[in-house]
């Protein structure tokens, strides 16, 4: 390691730490408890945790098979498919929201069909979960795919030569070996879902207890009551730290 490396590294660290520390410094501690436990705040936090958990579950069910396919398939179309599935990683969330509207909105391709059958998605909690899944699933897919690639498919081929069927191999060899990747993928996915803002606002709207998650509540409160916004921002920072902390512990455990 060159002797000068710590200098930009420290600057890089401060670049991230200083603004977060500054937010903590602006918290009005005397009223913090009251602000954070107001009905609007608690409703938003509960909704955020619930929808993020649901979105993470959906992302796992849909994303894990994708990750396995991407890691194991040799088809040249896999590259194209991967690029498309990972698109929400680089797409501004609000564009994702517009895309979701075009698909599931009342006048959307699927939305019009669902609406005709009495099923409305826009402005419901389901819309929040869809928006969060859309933006967060790529984190899970790429995280698991990475772990599977590093692990290689040697054990699976051995299992196959010993007579295990594809399903049995998938469940008893592939999945246990992918667990660390699955763990960090779930954590990253949950963190991203928790922070989702742009796609939710565009696609799901904002109504207390239905679609107004914690990030939306922070954005709204900032308009009138910066103290509440800052207090809620701190809550989100703490939750995010816990999530990232959990991910780090898992990754460490996987390496050793």
């Amino acid at each position, binding site marked *: 390691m060159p002797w000068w490396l710590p200098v930009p590294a420290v600057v890089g660290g401060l670049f991230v730490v200083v603004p977060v520390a500054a937010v903590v410094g602006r918290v009005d501690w005397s009223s913090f408890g009251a602000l954070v436990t107001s009905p609007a705040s608690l409703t938003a936090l509960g909704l955020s945790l619930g929808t993020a958990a649901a979105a993470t579950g959906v992302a796992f069910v849909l994303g894990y098979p994708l990750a396995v396919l991407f890691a194991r398939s040799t088809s040249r179309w896999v590259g194209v498919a991967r690029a498309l599935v990972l698109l929400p990683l680089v797409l*501004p*969330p*609000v*564009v994702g*929201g*517009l895309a979701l*509207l075009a698909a599931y*909105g*009342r*006048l959307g391709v699927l939305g019009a069909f669902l609406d005709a059958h009495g099923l409305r998605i*826009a*402005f419901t909690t389901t819309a929040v979960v869809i928006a969060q899944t859309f933006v967060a699933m790529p984190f899970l897919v790429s995280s698991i795919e990475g772990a599977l690639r590093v692990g290689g498919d040697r054990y699976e081929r051995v299992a196959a030569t010993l007579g295990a069927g594809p399903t049995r191999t998938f469940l008893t060899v592939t999945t246990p070996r992918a667990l660390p990747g699955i763990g960090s993928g779930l954590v990253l996915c949950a963190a991203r879902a928790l*922070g*989702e*803002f*742009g796609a939710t*606002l*565009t696609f*799901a*709207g*904002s*109504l*207390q207890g239905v*679609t*107004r998650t914690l*990030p*939306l509540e922070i*954005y*709204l*409160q900032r*308009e*009138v*009551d910066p103290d509440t916004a800052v207090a809620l921002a701190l809550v989100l920072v703490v939750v995010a730290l816990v999530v990232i902390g959990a991910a780090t512990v898992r990754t460490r455990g996987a390496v050793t």
Partner: protein
Amino acid sequence: MTTHARKWPLVVAAALSIVALVGCTEGPADGTGDGPAGTRSDGTSSTTAPTGTITVFAAASLQQTFTTLGRRYEAAHPGTTIRFSFAGSSDLVEQIRNGAPADVFASADEANMAKLARTDLAGAPEDFASNVLEIAVAPGNPHRIERLGDLTGADLQLVTCAAPVPCGAVTARVERAAGVDLHPVSEEQSVTDVLGKVASGQADAGLVYATDVEGADGAVDGVPVDESAEAVTTYPIAVLRDSGNPALARAFAASVRSDAGQRVLAAAGFGKP
């Protein structure tokens, strides 16, 4: 993540500004003839006309009209550059408080202007326009909405502004005046979000300003609300204390309040202050 927050309004705003730009091409055109209408009614004498550059912080709802007014002012007064920053009034107040370099502030409500006056950052504000709430509906008004009371239908997807933002406060006042209890499916962050949800067909109806209906260019129809008269929004403009070019700032603020300026605002659906 909040950087993406306002992209959807931006899409609408971008569309609106294209409309504004199209409108602007008329400005220089009649300016090269016998001078735009603004010059004579500005009241600024050409011998002492200030030059230089100013930055005007204006409420998002003023994007179209102020862009036009700025172009016309520049055309009528060579040597001047009027730059704009459009955003929600409370965002702009926050930016000015944090030292953003602005010369003029035009607010979409009196409360936000008062915040600056309280901290002695702005000079005496003067009202230059007013706005009232209207019901935005899909073109042709398929749900036959005629008054505020028609918005309480169980199957009607209504969208309004959230109570903490200025348009939401106005909505609440109009609701009280009409004695109606509205149950929106979503309470949006800004009036442009409400407009967007109606224009895109996501919602059946929304409460927006008359100027938003005018600026939507046919994407929505407007249904006037009688009770809106109980909650008229007034737009004040003020020169900021820290302005680097107070002479030009005052001259531009005066041009907004001039007859020519008022005509541009009236054409966009604004009422008299």
